Structure formats: structure tokens, C-alpha cells
């Protein structure tokens, strides 16, 4: 009945930050409609995209996320009048910053998913999961977390000696 | 503000042909008002009204190239002909709004499109850049007693948001200029109607009908003469006037002046410098009657 589920060597970790009124409800609709999508996504509920601090995205990557999704109400539909408009500017700027410091923006997806768009939720989550899966593990932040204080080599005898004494 | 005004000048084809008197009077008037006017080198036809009916890309490219040429000369671009004015403005407007067309045009003219330069009709220069006060101060012989019907035609202000010369359907800029030089302007109904423009050769019947309505309205409002800012309108109102009088068995005898001719007259320029002799409906009797010559 169901096609045999394909097993993958790599299952990316996807963290989604969503607003409660539109996208969370849209994801609920995908559930009540019994649509199927990859199980990689973990959903964090916020009242509004306006509440989502860029720090959370950074934190998610540092915590090992391979992809991050931020999703809220379509412009004009915000339950809080204008929260998503503020979010739109904030993330337009933040993604440019991440891009500049070398984060591949293919790992960071923004979307508007309304409470009626269960199908769109499935599509957005599936696309991001597959895209990130193809890109492989996000190694950058993970490597950074493993590194010690200095990336520079300890090349003078004095330093070497001092280091060994620690 | 006492700095000298300087403009690049795009006369357009008509001013080098049938509307030579418009060109002549413009140059003489600007000289008199100490406004610098430098003709754009190698300018060519803007495509006028026919080109954009045939091929939009062609019409946009013609104007875009001319705008690029105008960049060589310092100052905003001064335009005399309403059709050239309309097309140049339209090109700027379209290319600003539409990036795809802009790319096509850039390819066609093999140069980047420059949209920063301002395109100004002579009216704007007189009424705004020079200013009505300074214009009034330059008057040597006020046109008192001369009742003028200001005729805008279709292209000077329309369509909305493109030329942005003045209020689209109820402009006053011509009246403002004429009042500043002492003339009297009449309120009339057909100042914004179409004269038939370049149907003048292909469908003269239409032109005669439309132009007659304009002349009739001007006459009914008590005008002594008509003033225009477009060589095409001028052609229909002036050159065809005799023919229209014949068709409708009536007599108008309304001289049709260019803006620069009337303003120049007020600034003390002589008839030969204004090319008054080139007008078909003889203005001399009227001007003599009003003691303006």
C-alpha cells in the first residue's frame, strides 16, 4: 500500500521556528489531513514571527541544526497586526549577515504558511529537508565548537613550553 | 538664487523644419533671458507619435539613446516640442519601472540607460526654474489687452504620473506664464482636447473636425489668439485654419503663437527675431491693433 520507505545514510536535523496562529496551525492541518513528510523537523512555537530573535537561529545552528526554517503568517494576516512585517525586515538583514560570514543560505529557509496551507507546510519542510540532506552535515559550527582557544599554531619554543606546562 | 541657468537643448525634428520659428524664438528668448542653451550634439528623431505604435522597443531605444547623448551636455534637458517631451518622459518612466525592457534597450543602444537627467519642457523652465517673478521682471512690453486662449493639447500633461508637468486635467502653467508677462487668458472648454495631431496627412477629415471644435471654442470664449507649446498642434491650428474656415463657412482669424513668441514679444524682441513672419494666419494686424509692435 505504502511505497517502501527509502533509508538514507544521513538524516539532517531541521529546526523550525513558527508562529502559533498561521504556520503552527498549518502544520496541524497537514496532520489532520494525514499528509506525510520527513520526520526530521522539530517545531518550536512562538506567538508571532515578531518574537523570533536572530540569536535563536544562530543558537540552533550551534546546537547542531543542519537546516533552520522560520515561518509565519502571510503579510497582512498577522494576528498581531505587524509582527511579521518587523520580522521580515529583521530576517532580511540577518540572512545577509550570515551569508557574509560564510553560512550557506540554502540551509536557512523563510516562508509564509497560513493556517489553511497544510500542503505548503509539507512542501516547505520536505524541500528543505531534501535540500539539506543533499548538502550533507553542516560541519562549520560543529567544528567551531570543537576547537580550542587558538586556531593559530603554537610555533615558538616558549609558547610550546608554556602550553605543555598547563 | 542668481546662478546662471544652463540647459542641454533637444529641438526635435519639427523645429528644424516646419516649426523653424519655434526654434528661432526659443534661442532668441533664452539669449535675452541669459539662459544658457547648448544643442545636444548628434541628436536625432525621438520617434514621435508613430514609432511607439509600430515598435515599442524601437521607440524606447530612440529616446534612450538621445538621453544618453544629452548627458554630454551640462544641465537638464530642455525640450520644446510636446511630442518629444512626452516620448522622452515616457521612456524614462517605462525604463524606470520595467527592468526587463531596460535590459533590452541597453542591449539595443549598446550603452547603459541613464535616467537621472531631468527632461524639462520650456514651460517648466520659464515658470519654475527661472520663476514667474524673474520672468515678470524681464518684461519690457507687457502684453496688456491681449486675450489668449492657452492650448495644451493632449501630450503636455497626460497621462497621469508620466510627464508630471502640472495637474493632469486642469493645468494652469501656461496661464501662469502668460499672466506673468501681462497677457489676459481666457477660460475656455477645449484647451485639453486633441487636435488630431499626426492624422494631419492620413485622415485630414478627422483633423478638420477636431481642430474646428477647438478654434470654435476659443473664439466663443473671446480669445484674440491661441498659444501652443507643440509644433504638431500649431500645424493643425495655424496651417489648416484657412481650410477649416472654408469647410465650415466661418471666419476665425485667430493667430496661433508659440509660447516663446509671446513671451519673447513681451521681453522686447522684434518680430524678425521671433519669426512672426512665418505664421500662416497673419498676426501683424492683431499685434498692431493691441499696440504690441
Amino acid at each position, binding site marked *: 500500500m505504502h511505497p517502501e520507505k527509502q533509508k538514507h545514510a544521513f538524516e539532517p536535523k531541521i529546526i523550525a521556528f513558527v508562529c502559533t496562529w498561521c504556520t503552527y496551525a498549518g502544520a496541524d492541518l497537514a*496532520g489532520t489531513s494525514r499528509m*506525510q513528510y520527513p520526520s526530521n523537523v522539530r517545531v518550536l512555537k512562538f506567538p508571532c514571527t515578531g518574537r523570533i*530573535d536572530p540569536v535563536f537561529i544562530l543558537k*540552533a545552528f550551534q546546537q547542531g541544526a543542519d537546516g533552520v526554517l522560520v515561518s509565519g503568517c502571510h503579510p497582512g494576516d498577522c494576528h498581531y*497586526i505587524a509582527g511579521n512585517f518587523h520580522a521580515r525586515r529583521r530576517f532580511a538583514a540577518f540572512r545577509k549577515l550570515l551569508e557574509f560570514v560564510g553560512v550557506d543560505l540554502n540551509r536557512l529557509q523563510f516562508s509564509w504558511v497560513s493556517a489553511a496551507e497544510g500542503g505548503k507546510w509539507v512542501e516547505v519542510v520536505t524541500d528543505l529537508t531534501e535540500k539539506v540532506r543533499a548538502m550533507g552535515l553542516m560541519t562549520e559550527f560543529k567544528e567551531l565548537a570543537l576547537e580550542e582557544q587558538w586556531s593559530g599554531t603554537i610555533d615558538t619554543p616558549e609558547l610550546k613550553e608554556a602550553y605543555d606546562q598547563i | 538664487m542668481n546662478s546662471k541657468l544652463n540647459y542641454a537643448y533637444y529641438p526635435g525634428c519639427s523645429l528644424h523644419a516646419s516649426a523653424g520659428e519655434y526654434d528661432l524664438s526659443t534661442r532668441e528668448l533664452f539669449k535675452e533671458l541669459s539662459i544658457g542653451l547648448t544643442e545636444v550634439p548628434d541628436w536625432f528623431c525621438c520617434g514621435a507619435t508613430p514609432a511607439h505604435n509600430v515598435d515599442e522597443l524601437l521607440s524606447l531605444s530612440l529616446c534612450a539613446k538621445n538621453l544618453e547623448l544629452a548627458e554630454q551636455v551640462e544641465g537638464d534637458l530642455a525640450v520644446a516640442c510636446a511630442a518629444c517631451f512626452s516620448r522622452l518622459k515616457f521612456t524614462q518612466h517605462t525604463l524606470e519601472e520595467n527592468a526587463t525592457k531596460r535590459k533590452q534597450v541597453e542591449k539595443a543602444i549598446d550603452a547603459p540607460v541613464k535616467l537621472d537627467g531631468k527632461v524639462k519642457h520650456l514651460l517648466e523652465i520659464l515658470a519654475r526654474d527661472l520663476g514667474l517673478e524673474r520672468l515678470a521682471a524681464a518684461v519690457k512690453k507687457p502684453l496688456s489687452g491681449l486675450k489668449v486662449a492657452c492650448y495644451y493639447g493632449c501630450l503636455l500633461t497626460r497621462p497621469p504620473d508620466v510627464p508630471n508637468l502640472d495637474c493632469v486635467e486642469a493645468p494652469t502653467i501656461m496661464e501662469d506664464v502668460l499672466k506673468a508677462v501681462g497677457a489676459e487668458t481666457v477660460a475656455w472648454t477645449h484647451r*485639453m482636447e486633441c487636435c488630431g495631431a499626426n492624422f494631419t496627412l492620413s485622415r485630414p477629415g478627422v483633423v478638420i473636425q477636431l481642430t474646428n471644435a477647438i478654434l470654435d471654442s476659443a473664439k466663443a470664449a473671446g480669445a484674440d489668439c491661441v498659444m501652443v507649446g507643440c509644433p504638431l498642434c500649431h500645424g493643425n491650428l495655424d496651417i489648416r485654419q484657412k481650410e477649416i474656415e472654408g469647410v465650415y463657412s466661418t471666419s476665425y482669424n485667430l493667430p496661433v503663437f508659440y509660447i516663446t513668441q509671446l513671451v519673447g514679444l513681451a521681453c522686447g524682441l522684434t518680430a524678425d527675431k521671433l519669426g512672426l513672419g512665418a505664421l500662416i494666419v497673419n498676426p501683424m494686424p492683431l499685434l498692431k491693433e493691441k499696440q504690441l509692435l
Partner: protein
Amino acid sequence: MSRIGVFICHCGENISRTVDVERVAREVGQLPGVAFSTDYKYMCSDPGQNLLKKAIQEQKLSHVVVAACSPRMHERTFRKAVEAAGLNPFLCEMANIREHCSWVHEDKEEATVKAVEIVGMMVERVKKNRVLPTITVPVTKRALVIGGGIAGIQAALDIADCGHEVILVEREPSIGGHMAQLSETFPTLDCSQCIMTPKMVDVANHPKIKLYTWSEIERVEGYIGNFQVTIKRKARSVDEDKCTGCGVCMEKCPVRKIPNKFDCNLGMRPAIYVPFPQAVPNTPVIDRENCIKFKTGKCGLCQKVCGPGAVDYEQEDILIVEAVGAIVVATGFDLYTIDEKPKGSLIKGYGEFGHGKIPDVVDGMTFERLASASGPTGGKILRPSDGKEPKQIVFIQCIGSRAREKGISYCSKVCCMYTAKHTMLYHHKVHDGQAYVFFMDARTPGKSYDEFWRRSIEEEEAVYIRGMVSRLYQKGDKIVVMGSDIAVGVQVEIEADMVVLATAIQPQKGADTLAQKLGISYDKYNFYSEAHAKLRPVECATAGIYLAGACQGPKDIPDTVSQASAAAAKVMTLFSKDKLEREPIVARVKEAGCVGCFYCKKVCPYGAVEEKEIRDRQGNLIKVVAYVNPGVCGGCGTCQATCPSKSVELDGYTDEQIVAMIESL
């Protein structure tokens, strides 16, 4: 240390079919802080809830996570159950393992792993949850209604009939608004004044309604349940308590030729006047600009003839302050005029229609006054220039409306119908006349509306021409109407005796200034914005302020009355309790860290952030910090995301809670 209880629901088989619930309960039970973990077939059922309550008491649980369906479904249910067991309801969270897990995945292993993570995430979150007390705000059970047209009257009567005091403020000398000016109303053609004036009298006689006419809103302070409104009562020069409304002053006033605005300047009135005979209150006002006494100091005739001695030239504007709990804004509309508009204005005007200089080109409201039995012509259709009966009349629709190039893109909604009504009234009064209508489309969605419109064509012989008019000009005593008939594709010219323009409906002048005083939002045309276009159409985003009538958008009378009653119902809902309770998901400022940059205030969609001065005991100012009014805060959290030092925090969604969730993954 927390003692967290975790309850995994099977949801019949909805969850347990794809999620190994026992394993989830087992694995989650190992998490630090989890004291109790179990699974049950139906957590939301009575036995399920009892299981929860019992566990809280027996296991002395400090926090609860229910892993079941979406919190949008049952969060309220479980929080109530938790509260019943003696815990603060906000110490309970739901983990969504149905909509977000069991229903969208097929692989049991995958779904189970995901469910464990989802529940684990909520366990970490709930550890950081704090006790949140329900916020209560006292409610002053008095309402302010701004605007005394049909919308304001209806709202005021509905609220007052419910037993609450209402303050009704009207800018003009009388209530009644535009509806009092109309002759007949579509689609029934009943006389407007006949149905309107009884309601006006009801307002005047209602013991619960305090009526302030000739008054304006000066200032509004406070928030839902607790507004302080300063009202300016303009000097009327007539003492309302003494005046009997006998009208002798108006008869004797020597100034008689002042155009009456109520009659669209067609009729004349004296300097001491009521705008129309049925005015409420029936107390005249002195128009000080035109009164001889005020201009020269002489005359004083009205004071001499006034029996009760009500005329008082010394009266001055006074300010009064009223405390109210709710505000209904019903300021109505104004008509677009065809006069030349100032340069740079959004509205570009219709210069080609003669700047409104042609006297026999009038707007729809002027035609209403001409057709009204109580109007300046006694109901005869006569043209303003020479008083002749127009035999050819042209109506032009969509003047200003649906004309983007003129600055307005919306449809004014009522013009199709009132133009149809005008053609009928005209045909009833001028039997040998012919009416023409230029129109774009006829929009007749309303009960009996299309039938009415068809009647104007089929029975009342109006000729409808689909197309717009390009120009109007005076030719002798005729007006030449140049237009096009796009159905046939020809140019049309009609020599008309009179032209009636169906001009667009716009908000009242000064609507933006009032909105700024009220702190409500408005669109680019100055129509007031509702909180939600579909689901909250009568509420403003600013809590405690409601909208009624055409101030929110063009509306006909039935829609206006419906909205007014709806606004009244919203006010009554607010007034049904002594204190307003709200979910405590609001932002709080941590004053120690706040540096007063007020980015929170800049981004707050509700205007909930105020500036608060912190002073030492000597009264010296230490610093100015932000303060979030919990009665006004909507709870979106945009302030917190914007605050550089995170000195404002949204309860229920704190950084600690969110970071705990991220770190659990």
C-alpha cells in the same frame, strides 16, 4: 528540583498506531526532573483528566507535560485540569505528538524517536515556566460614542438600552448625520427622516444617554476599561437648559442669507439657527462668524426676544473630562468634492468637469436635498442656476471611486444604488424628463438591490450608458456631457440641463487627527482599520475601541446599523464583567537593565509601551525606562526580539524557555 509529570496519550489509536507510547513514557521518565511518567488511552477524557489530577496530588508534581494532540485543541482543557488540582495553569505544557508526529509519519521507529524528542523538548521548556497570575483590569461601565449619525445613534441606543451609561458626542449642532439629509432610502423608498427622527428623539429622551452636540474630542488617555476623555464643548451662545426651542430668535434674526450646509448650501439660514427643523436637541446655536452682535457689538435682537433668557453671548468653550471604559467611533463619511485639489494631494480632483464651477453640476447629496420634501425646493427638482426644471438630466457614477489615477482605488459601494434611486425620484417628479446614467458596472449585492436597480431601467425608463465621461462644459444654458458608450463603441455627447455626480465616499475631514488622539490605525485614505478584516471587523487593534459605520469603509444604511449594533454588543461583552480578565501572556520590562532606547515602543503594534520615570526618594530622576501596559499589550513579543539588552520579556515565551528547547535538541 522540579517534579515533572509526563502524560502520554494514545488518542485511541491515533497516536499509538505509529508511536510506541510505552517506550516514549519509559524514555522520557529517565530525563532529569521527571518524577512521574505514564501513558493512557484518552488523556482528554474524564478518567484521563482525573488520572492527571490524582498524579499531581499524589506525586506532588510541580510541572506537567501532556503529550497528545495540538495545544490548539486541548491546551485549555489540560490547563484547567491542572488548575483544578491546585497548580498554576501555566505550569502545564502540551507536546504535540499527534498532528506533528503520529499523523504525518508512517515509520514507527522514526515517529517514536521524534515523539521522544518533542516530549523531551517540552520537558526542558516546562522547567523554565513560571507561575503566571491571571491579569485583571477594572472596567468603567460607561461608553463613549463619537459621532451622532445613524451609526452612533444605533450604537448609543443599544448600549443604553442594556442599562449602561453612554456619552454621545457630535461635532454639529444636531445629531442625525448624513442620513437626516437624505430624501428617500433604497431599496424601499421610505422617507429617511420618517425613520430617522424617531431614533433621534429616543436618544434625546433616553435617561442613560448624555448628549453633547456642538462638541469635539480634545484628548483621549488611558486604555481598555479605563479611558479618560476630554471633550471640548464649543460655545453655543444659547443655554441648553433654559432654551425651550420656540424658535422666535431665529424668526427675528436680521441676518438671513447664510447658505445652510445641511441643505448643501442651496437654502439659507439665519445667524442663530438649528440646521433643520427636526434637529435634536432643538436648541439653536449662534454662528459667531456671521452674527452682527459678534462682528460689530450691535444688534442683540435674539437676546431681547428670548422669553426664557437663554441667549448668552458670554459663553465660552469649555473642556470636560469623562471616564469611560469603551469607545465606539462612528464618525462617518464626507463626499469627495470635484473642486480643484491642492497640489501634492493624494486626491487629484476633476478639473475637466469644470472645477465644480458649473452651477448645475451637483453632487448626489445636493440632489437628495432637492428631492427632499423638507428641502429648500420643497421636493421639486429645480436646477440651482435658474430654478428651471431640468428635462434632460445626466447622472455620472464612480466620480473619484475606482479611479486609481485620481488617487482613490476603492469602490464607494452605495453610488450604484443611490443613483438608481435618483433616477426613480426624478422620474416620479419630472414625468416628461429623461435621465441618463453613465456607469462602469452596476454593483447591486444586497437584499432586493438588483431588483431595485432593474426597476430604474425597466419601469422608470432611465437610460444606462456603459462608459465614462471625459469632459463637461457649459454651452449656453446647457451642459455638454462628452463621454463614450463602450458597449456600442461610439462617442456620445448629451446636452443636459443638469448633471449629478455620484462622488466618492471619503472619511470625514480630520479623521486622521482623531485617530491619532485615539491611538488607532487608519489606511492611506484615512479609513479606520479594523483588527482583522474577516474575524474582528468591528474592533480596532487598540483594545476597547470599536468601529461603526462608514468611518471604517463605505457602507449603506443596513450595513452601518448592523455594524453599530455589533459594536454595541462588543461593548456590552466588555461590560458584562466587573473586571477584565486576560491571558497573562504579556511583555514585562526588567527595569534594572532597561536603558530607555525605546525600540520596544517603536515596534509595538499596540502602542502598549509607555515611558516611565524612575526617581530616587528625593524625587531626582534616575532614568526613564519602558513600561508595558498589561491591559493594552497584545502579546506578540516583537518588543523582546527587538530589545538590544533583552530587558523586556514576554511571559510564557521567555528566552530561557526557548533556549532550553533549542538546547534540548
